[in-house]
């Protein structure tokens, strides 16, 4: 297909499809009997075909008309991944309203800002917990006209004058269809390619969240291009378990699902995700590195408990997989003997292991959001799991760069995605332009103007460079986090943090040192991995805090830091970023306390301010520090914990002189 033809198509929607409701209609007409949604409920996978889903969504849309939803209204959706919530979003689009999915674990205070900002008049809540939050918000914003909820439990006693079960308005909608059919069809027909498809709030590592407005064009073009890139078909199965408020979930579970016509599977609850993953065996999968890390940690823990024979078999064949598995996946030449041995390993180890993990049918999958440890990445690839990396943003409707099959490496994020143009400015910041570039930040022209220029180029805020030999993009760090040490050498915290986080014992690291003569670090231990180690070594502990402060744990972490320092010292630009002193924090950094974003990225500035006393102690040479920290419980109440933290000096490799970056 020539470029001209593709352009011609986009004027009137991809293949004439201007909106998600239009795609839904096409899917129901072309393969109405194929499964569109599955949800595990009452221990069984309940299934809806495309025709059934289309009928449900239409009934919902009629219900929305009945309660008076106007064109241009915002409908907030707060809940876990359930078909009913996805349907609400598409039904909202049908009536010309704008769906705004929100993070369900946000506390009322956080949610108030967003609700007020988008002015949502209608809210779809997952359950009583969310309804309670919305009622609390309503006391401040007084704008909500109607609350709808999915799960009826505990809702009997509420005042229902402005509240209904989603099922009930759906039933009313279909009962009153004669009155509203014409109006609904008129509204569906009026949707244009440049109308708003969805509004998503970026969690933002700094400042207030911003509402990113994505048009039908953004979503459908991105879905189409990325689906072609990985040859996605309507035979895929995906598991939808990532937050609905995150752009990735919107693109995978709605954009691509509707474009390709594949089936979206929703887990029974957040806690059953791993079991459900295994039962579904998705062919197309997306997960942040943390999921893969956790799974690998679990595999290793369970292998230590396995019999001697199984252990030897596992280690023997894994060593072989490490040698040739990745090459085979990339289609590189591999000797006949090695191939045969790999096939045997597949029969005995890799196959059963993949099946246990839920990756038995895995055809293509991505990890993104954070850097993934090369060893973890290679582990999965060596098993024949086609795991790739991509680099994206809400503002780009996800895709900026992607790794094509056969060019997958742990240290790059791939080549520009189809129809994406990339450029690096003189300060090293990455800019892009694509059909997925967002329309605007809602009610925030200043931010829109400072992010997107007149020609449509968007600044990512990340620093990186394009590798000349391969054309792949490599990310260094957040542009604003990259700084200079006192002696002028480059300070790129993420580089060191990621190296440390690749140890299973370490969950999170925050490195400080911008403008200082040496670097210090906060470390969070991984309770699963360290807890298991403690059990194995008869180390008794009563709490996270106690385990985190255990002398033997500190010793282990110190050895990790020492190894990382050696490896950092070898990098000629970043050798100044070695960790001189560190503490193992007494609490996990948490989004509820504002220390992380909802997508689990550390909010560096906030952490620095909150724990200033500990940072001072790290720099002034004291051996320990007593501190009291405020914590927020899940229900929004506050409390505090106190602790005395040991400060550990880590061995560093002396570096005579290092090159000064960017002179």
């Amino acid at each position: 297909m020539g470029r001209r033809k593709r352009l011609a198509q986009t004027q009137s929607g991809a293949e004439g499809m201007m909106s998600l409701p239009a795609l839904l209609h096409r899917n129901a007409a072309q393969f109405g009997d194929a499964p569109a949604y599955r949800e595990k409920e009452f221990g069984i996978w309940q299934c809806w075909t495309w025709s059934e889903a289309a009928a449900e969504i239409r009934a919902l849309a009629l219900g929305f008309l009945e309660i008076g939803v106007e064109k241009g209204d915002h409908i907030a959706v707060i809940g876990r991944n359930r078909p009913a919530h996805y349907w609400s979003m598409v039904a909202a689009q049908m009536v010309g309203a704008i769906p705004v999915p929100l993070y369900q674990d946000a506390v009322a205070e956080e949610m108030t800002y967003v609700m007020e900002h988008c002015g949502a008049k209608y809210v779809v809540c997952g359950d009583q917990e969310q309804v309670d939050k919305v009622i609390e918000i309503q006391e401040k914003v007084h704008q909500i006209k109607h609350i709808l909820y999915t799960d009826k439990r505990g809702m009997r006693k509420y005042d229902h004058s402005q509240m209904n079960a989603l099922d009930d308005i759906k039933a009313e909608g279909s009962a009153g269809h004669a009155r509203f059919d014409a109006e609904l069809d008129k509204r569906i027909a009026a949707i244009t390619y440049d109308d708003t498809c969805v509004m998503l709030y970026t969690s933002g590592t700094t400042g207030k969240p911003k509402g990113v407005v994505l048009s039908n064009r953004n979503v459908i073009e991105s879905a189409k291009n990325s689906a072609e890139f990985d040859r996605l078909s309507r035979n895929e199965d995906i598991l939808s378990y990532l937050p609905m408020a995150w752009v990735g979930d919107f693109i995978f579970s709605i954009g691509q699902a509707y474009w390709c016509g594949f089936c979206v599977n929703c887990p029974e609850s957040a806690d059953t995700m791993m079991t459900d993953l295994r039962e579904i065996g998705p062919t197309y999968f997306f997960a942040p590195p943390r999921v893969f890390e956790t799974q690998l940690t679990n595999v290793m823990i369970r292998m230590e408990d396995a019999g001697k024979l199984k252990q030897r078999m596992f280690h023997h064949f894994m060593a072989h997989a490490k040698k040739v598995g990745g090459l085979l996946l990339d289609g590189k030449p591999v000797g006949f003997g090695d191939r045969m041995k790999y096939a045997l390993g597949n029969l005995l180890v890799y196959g059963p292991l993949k099946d246990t993990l839920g990756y038995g049918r895995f055809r293509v999958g991505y990890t993104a959001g954070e850097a993934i440890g090369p060893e973890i990445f290679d582990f999965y690839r060596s098993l024949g799991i086609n795991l790739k990396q991509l680099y994206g943003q809400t503002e780009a409707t996800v895709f900026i760069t992607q790794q094509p099959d056969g060019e997958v490496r742990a240290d790059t994020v791939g080549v520009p995605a189809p129809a994406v143009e990339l450029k690096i400015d003189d300060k090293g910041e990455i800019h892009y332009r694509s059909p997925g570039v967002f329309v605007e930040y809602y009610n925030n022209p200043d931010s829109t103007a400072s992010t997107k220029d007149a020609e449509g180029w968007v600044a990512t805020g990340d620093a990186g460079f394009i590798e000349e030999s391969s054309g792949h993009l490599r990310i260094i760090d957040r542009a604003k986090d990259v700084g200079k040490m006192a002696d002028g050498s480059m300070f790129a915290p993420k580089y060191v943090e990621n190296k440390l986080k690749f140890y299973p014992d370490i969950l999170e690291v925050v490195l400080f040192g911008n403008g200082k003569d040496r670097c210090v670090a906060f470390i969070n231990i991984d309770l699963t991995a360290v807890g298991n180690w403690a059990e194995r070594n008869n180390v008794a502990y009563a709490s996270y805090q106690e385990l985190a402060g255990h002398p033997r744990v500190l010793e282990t972490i110190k050895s990790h830091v020492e190894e990382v320092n050696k490896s950092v010292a070898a990098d000629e630009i970043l050798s100044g970023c070695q960790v001189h002193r560190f503490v193992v924090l007494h609490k996990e950094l948490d989004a509820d306390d504002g220390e992380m974003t909802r997508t689990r990225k550390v909010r560096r500035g906030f952490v620095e301010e909150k724990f200033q006393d500990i940072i001072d102690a790290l720099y002034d040479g004291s051996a320990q520090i007593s501190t009291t920290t405020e914590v927020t419980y899940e229900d929004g109440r506050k409390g505090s914990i106190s602790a005395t933290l040991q400060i550990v000096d880590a061995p560093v490799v002396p570096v005579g002189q290092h090159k000064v970056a960017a002179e």
Partner: protein
Amino acid sequence: MLDNPEGYVTEDGRKIGGVVMEMKNITLRFGGVVAIKDISFDIREGEIRAIIGPNGAGKSSMLNVISGFYVPQEGEVWFHGAKRPQMRPFEVAQQGIARTFQNIALFEGMSVLDNVMTGRLSFMKTNILQQAMWKGKAEAEEVENREAVEKIIDFLEIQHIRKTPVARLPYGLKKRVELARALAAEPKLLLLDEPMAGMNVEEKEDMSRFILDVNDEFGTTIALIEHDMGVVMDLSDRVVVMDYGKKIGDGTPDEVRNNQEVIDAYLGVSHD
């Protein structure tokens, strides 16, 4: 309002019906020890009725009298307007009474699902032979009962441990599984023996919510014994207070809270 024999409507709009169970002048002795001394109170349909008191007050004995496990030496138990004869445990279950225990009594080696399924025993009509043959009646019956059990598993949010052996579960979850098993019997009267004992604040809050939801959703009448005053006062419609085997207070949480005898019992005034 509370004296209306037809029932009343609570502040939050729940309908409480007439008396379902009445304890008349109950006295229970173990040899020379008098565990319960001449206690009378009633339980109304749809209410949450709490029995509280310090250690050794006779709360658990009282619950065992309600459940028919202990037979009092004096006094009568009236259930649904008739004097209740001495009964065997399965007869109690058939009457629609289910309970949980203070010291969790689950089948440790069995999965959560199987444990909850045992609660459906009184709904199983097929015999051993039919169950051994499996196909046909027994299968249909199992499917039907499994559906009911799955609804309860969903209700109590224990999907993630459905197939986990009970022995591997932490204490708080075991308590929830016990509640699930009791609910599986579709009781009209649910007896809970210290449902929050040994739980942390978060687990207590979860359990309170489940108890309220059970009462709200299924209209189940609940009688519970509890140590934690705060929890009881928040949960229950009416409270009986016991001390040294005697009833020292009975009424709404507010009435009980302001009762001087109750305050004395809890703050520890000498008994002589």
